[in-house]
């Protein structure tokens, strides 16, 4: 469904990614693991068309999307949930969702305000509050809900468990499971191996902008040296 081949990205003169290759299949949850600064966010942003200097190949559903404007990539069916949440603080919860709203598409489940408020009951209570008045966990829910309003087929989740309370992390795991049940595919970037193991089908490990591992969590557990080498802080 999503195929990334030999993706290279740089900011100015600094090369951030070199020859990154990964793929996400139909209705699959894939984790992209790595330490801080390993290149997880840049990989996701590059796929989403938010990095200027990129080269390589990114195909989604058979069409080459690298170099396209990010709104076209979104319209092709990719949903992006940024690491910093990037809620519109001066807009209400409903207005935030409205910004994300797009026409329903034949190949993906359709999300409505009501459906999302069921999935995120906290947001329903605060629908008229401004984005900046929400707690960190609520903002994290809102940023996911906002992306789902675009009815994506593949969701790119950038570090969803970062900086939120453990109880919310649990909720997050439930939601990712829900997305998979709805038939969506998810690429999730994570530092937290434990969380990734719960929610995803298989894993990639990236380090210093290069892919170091591709395979199952079982294999990772059997070879603890891999995660020690590339993930331990």
């Amino acid at each position: 469904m999503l195929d990334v081949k030999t993706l290279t990205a740089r900011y100015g003169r600094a090369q951030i990614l070199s020859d990154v290759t990964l793929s996400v299949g139909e209705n699959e949850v894939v984790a992209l693991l790595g330490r801080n600064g390993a290149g997880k966010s840049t990989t996701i942003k590059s796929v989403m068309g938010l990095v200027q200097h990129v080269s390589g190949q990114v195909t989604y559903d058979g069409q080459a999307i690298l170099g396209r404007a990010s709104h076209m990539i979104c319209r092709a069916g990719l949903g992006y949930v940024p690491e910093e949440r990037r809620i519109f603080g001066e807009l209400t919860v409903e207005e935030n969702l409205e910004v994300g709203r797009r026409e329903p598409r034949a190949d993906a489940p359709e999300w409505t305000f009501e459906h999302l408020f069921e999935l995120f009951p906290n947001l329903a209570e605060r629908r008229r509050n401004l984005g900046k008045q929400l707690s960190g966990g609520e903002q994290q829910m809102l940023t996911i809900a906002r992306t789902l309003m675009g009815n994506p087929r593949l969701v790119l989740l950038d570090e969803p468990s970062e900086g939120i309370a453990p109880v919310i992390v649990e909720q997050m795991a439930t939601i990712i499971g829900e997305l998979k049940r709805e038939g969506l595919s998810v690429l999730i970037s994570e530092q937290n191996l434990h969380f990734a193991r719960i929610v995803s089908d298989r894993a990639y490990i990236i380090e210093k902008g290069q892919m170091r591992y591709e395979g199952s969590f079982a294999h990772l557990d059997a070879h603890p040296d891999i995660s020690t080498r590339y993930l331990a802080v």
Partner: protein
Amino acid sequence: MGFYLAQLLTGLANASSLFLIASGLSIIFGVTRIVNFAHGSFYMVGAYLAYSLVTWLDGGILGFWFSIVLAALLVGVIGLVVELIILRRIYHAPELFQLVATFGVVLIVQDATLAIWGAEDLLGPRAPGLDSAVRILGEPIPEYDLALIAIGPAVLLAIWLVFHRTRWGVLVRAATQDREMVGALGVNQAWLFSATFILGSFLAGLGGALQIPREAVSLQMDLSIIGEAFVVTVIGGMGSVSGAFIAAVLISVLNAFAILIFPQISIVLPFVVMAVVLIVRPYGIFGRPGSEHGGTEDPDQPLRLLSGKGAMMLAAAVMALALSPVFVADFTMILLVDVMVATLFAVSLHFMMGVGGMVSFGHAAYFGVGAYAAAMAVKLLGLGMIPAMLLAPFGAALAALFFGWFCVRLSGVYLAMLTLAAAQILWGVTFQWQDVTGGDDGILGVWPAAWASSDRVYFYIAFALCIGGIWALRRAAHSPFGYVLRGVRDSRIRAEAIGVDTRFHQWMGFTVAGAFAGLAGVVFAFSKGSVFPDALGIAQSIDGLIMVLLGGIHALAGPILGAAAFVLIEDWVTRLDYWRVIFGGIILVIVLLAPDGIAGGVNRLMRLLRRDAA
């Protein structure tokens, strides 16, 4: 009592027009981050179009209001055209490039207006049905003023409804906060920008069109309103429409009463208010620090030391310049002095912007203070040329020290606006303070000493001061002080974290840049023999910006190339009719073809040639 009420109502009526134009400016800035100098031109064209339509239709009340709205709509279309053919191509260029491009539009619109409507001021008809005055507490109040007082809040309400009740409005508000994220959610930013531009220019056109029963339509309307519109936008908070409304009312009402006490204040008052507001609330009344997302993501390249070949070329150019009096005519020498003055001015501005990371819209202030300090030292203190030349840059440094203290408390576009305010305050004082500065008549008879009065000798004095100044600034850019400044430019937080007093360094950078701009002003004053308030004007500041940006901000050679190109082109085109169109066109072509300036463009060309050769 009635008199004060009348004054208040006049103030409120003025506020309505000001609000219309400022709200448009604010909306455009909020979404596109473009500081649109051409907004005053949209306002002016709105007035001209309304004038023509009203006279042509001549259809009573209905015809009048139809003409006003149609004129505003047409201006909206003009805004769209400007957005589509010019700005759309340069959204990824540095913000200041966009500003220079909009200034190119200002020049072109000025000449187009001149060609269509002529140079004469046009007196519009009164509004049918609203052409008399009503008496309120015994004072006559024009009915049209009352209509304007109602129109301002009505438009504010309409904009509020659009922004809160339509999907488009919600998208605009979202984009004002984080336009990149809006794009990632599937919204076509290009389309959003165009629509924003239409709305913004429509509002400017409406503001201009509504002015025709109140003031003569003239070619000066564009630049006379733009300064005040910027002030209102900044006080309200850039991107905030209700802020613009409150600021417009604040400025206009304060002005209506202040002129009763001190009639000369109206030129300076808006800028003083802005300076006060920005010091208390650095992002304006309703403004917030802008999101960093969606800007250009390339960090600034480090400044490179000259390569051996480059140094040789530069040395050869300086040698050629030094020897030029031997073989060029006198008028060429005078032109070369102009080039050197402009170059030093541009290099000092570049020191502030490129090295210090502080954009100035009012760098002419220090150029002008230097020039005036020299002139006053000669005329009032009776000093000779050399003492005056030595003393005057310190005058400019003092002015920069004073205003810089305020300016470095801000950053980005707000800092730039405060520098503009500082320059306008100094300009206003110079313009009004007849006894000391000669006001509009300037100071005449500031000639070099007898021994230096030949063009050739003065050329060498100018050469020594300007080339020396440029060399000193270059040294400063590569000194530890320059490293710190560039560090602060690239990341204030990181610089602070390693123990740098960022504000102090920026303050000193500001002062150094001001002092050298003053030195350029000194050389300028003695070469022309006179100084006028223009030396501190907006136009002079913009000239400096154009030189730096045309040259390219990322290279130390940039301002040198830019200033030389600017003076030579200006000298050539100002002899022609409709030179503004040509000059504006040249600016646009350079901006569109070489968004990294002449130096950047040359660099790219060289790389391309080298690659082809290899």
